[in-house]
């Protein structure tokens, strides 16, 4: 649906060259929710704004629904933008217009006649659950309601794509959840392709089918959200995932533990099987759970456990080998230290 080819955006500011987006190629499929995460200044917002030429890329190609946006004249570009909805962190509603008029404006932009505008705008407000607020002004609405209005406006011309620029970053967790649910619903019901950028990994985990991580204008890692969460490769990706799935154990606790401490990740079905208990029984190893969590990402389970294994050294090693074969993701965080302790005592 959206394909970016070797896209770059360079700014000239006060004689200095600032690279916003650095040679990014990306393919976003029809009907998926694609997330781009990164810290502020990573270039994700610029990347998103290149997708409807709110910022004109310095180099590269932007194809949306088979149209090369870079080659369009301003008239055709306006036409193309009508099928690319966009919502923003700051909502950006016209304060002097009522809710209904704000939505109707987008229809006016595409030349819909007055009666049809009103009818369609009311329909859209119903879709986002705000039909009772049609005649109010944005200043009278809460943040979540404002974002709903801006979603209605973005959907006015039956777009194929919806671009979300930090759409939930200004909202509280409850409201964020309800806006995400709404986005998910319109993605399913209308078959809309959604691209969202965010610095909240929680948002990605919640609704994105696939995601990309950006740093310094480049995409450092991309893949299905589940795979990214299950096996992140890049350091930055790992840090982002830690904001959602944090399995760090306090130093003090670690230093008090004498057994082998392992970190295990269970993917998909294996999260539901009793691999660990089978293993422990089979090997005569005692396990002490220090941390454990099962997350559901894209309706698939992802388990993360940190355990202290105690028992005879050799047996523990064999058990870990076996776990590695079955799970793939087993990391030894701290080796057995009971030997050190006894040595220390002997001295």
């Amino acid at each position, binding site marked *: 649906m959206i394909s970016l080819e070797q896209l770059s955006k360079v700014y000239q500011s006060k004689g200095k060259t600032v690279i916003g987006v650095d040679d990014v190629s990306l393919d976003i499929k029809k009907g998926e929710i694609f997330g781009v995460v990164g810290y502020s200044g990573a270039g994700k917002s610029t990347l998103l704004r290149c997708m409807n030429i709110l910022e004109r890329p310095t180099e590269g190609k932007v194809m949306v629904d088979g149209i090369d946006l870079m080659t369009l004249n301003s008239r055709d570009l306006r036409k193309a933008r009508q099928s*690319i909805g*966009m919502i923003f962190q700051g909502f*950006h509603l016209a304060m*002097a217009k009522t809710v209904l008029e704000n939505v109707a404006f987008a229809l006016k932009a595409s030349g819909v006649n007055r009666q049809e505008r009103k009818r369609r705008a009311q329909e859209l407000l119903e879709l986002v659950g705000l039909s009772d607020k049609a005649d109010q002004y944005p200043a009278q609405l809460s943040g979540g309601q404002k974002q709903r209005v801006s979603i209605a406006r973005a959907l*006015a011309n039956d777009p194929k794509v919806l671009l979300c620029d930090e759409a939930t970053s200004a909202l509280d967790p409850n409201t964020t959840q309800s806006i995400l649910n709404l986005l998910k619903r319109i993605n399913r019901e209308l078959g809309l392709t959604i691209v969202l950028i965010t610095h909240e990994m929680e948002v990605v985990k919640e609704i994105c089918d696939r995601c990309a991580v950006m740093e310094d204008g480049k995409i450092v890692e991309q893949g299905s959200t589940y795979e990214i969460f299950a096996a992140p490769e890049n350091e930055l990706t790992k840090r982002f995932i830690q904001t959602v799935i944090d399995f760090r154990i306090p130093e003090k606790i670690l230093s008090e533990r004498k057994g082998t401490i392992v970190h295990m990740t269970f993917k998909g079905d294996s999260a539901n099987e009793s691999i660990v208990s089978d293993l422990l029984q089979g090997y005569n190893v005692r396990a002490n759970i220090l941390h454990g969590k099962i997350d559901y990402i894209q309706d698939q389970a992802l388990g993360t456990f940190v355990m202290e294994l105690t028992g005879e050294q050799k047996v523990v090693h064999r058990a870990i080998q076996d776990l590695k074969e079955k799970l793939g993701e087993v990391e030894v965080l701290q080796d057995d230290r009971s030997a050190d302790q006894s040595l220390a005592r002997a001295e």
Partner: protein
Amino acid sequence: MIDQLINLWPELNKSFIETLIMVGIGLVVALIAGLPLGLLLFVTDRDLFLENRTVKSIVGVVVNLIRSVPFIILLVFLFPFTNFLIGTTTGPVAASVALSVAAIPFYARIVESSARDIDKGVIEAAIACGASPWLIIKDIIFPEIKPGLISGLTITAISLIGYSAMAGAIGGGGIGDLAIRYGYYRYDNFVMFTTVILLIVLVQIVQYTGDYIAKTVKKN
């Protein structure tokens, strides 16, 4: 004192109407020419949807040029032009030529600065909707700055009342003219005070009305 007032009345009445004519014409011209000019200054600015450095600097320089000439000098400087346009350089209508010339750039700058206060994001969202520049000006920018446009018109009106006194001094008529003729040349303090009070009342009424209308059109 009552006698004095009765004697002065016809003259006062005439002057007052002359002032209203001068200021009125100036305001209408400011609105007709200054408003589009101000919007032009705004939309051709950097990073805006009709960014155009050439237009912006030419219009900007012309506006500054007119605004940097002291009004009394502008009046005299424009005499040939006024004569060409109206056929005379005296009377309120002739004076309103210079007042209009001064009011256009004055109001244009006020329009520009109130447009700058609009959240740029709103304009950006309109662009993302695929709206044409004209639709954005007409349907987004204009309604957003309406209260500002009216306050700006109030400020312009009050400035014009002040300027009209100067125009009066060199043949334009109006309250200012009355004050100078009687108060300055004849040391008639009664006329002086009366005109000052009249001007104060006029300015108060303009300010109050302007504020009231601006408040009424503010919709959020």
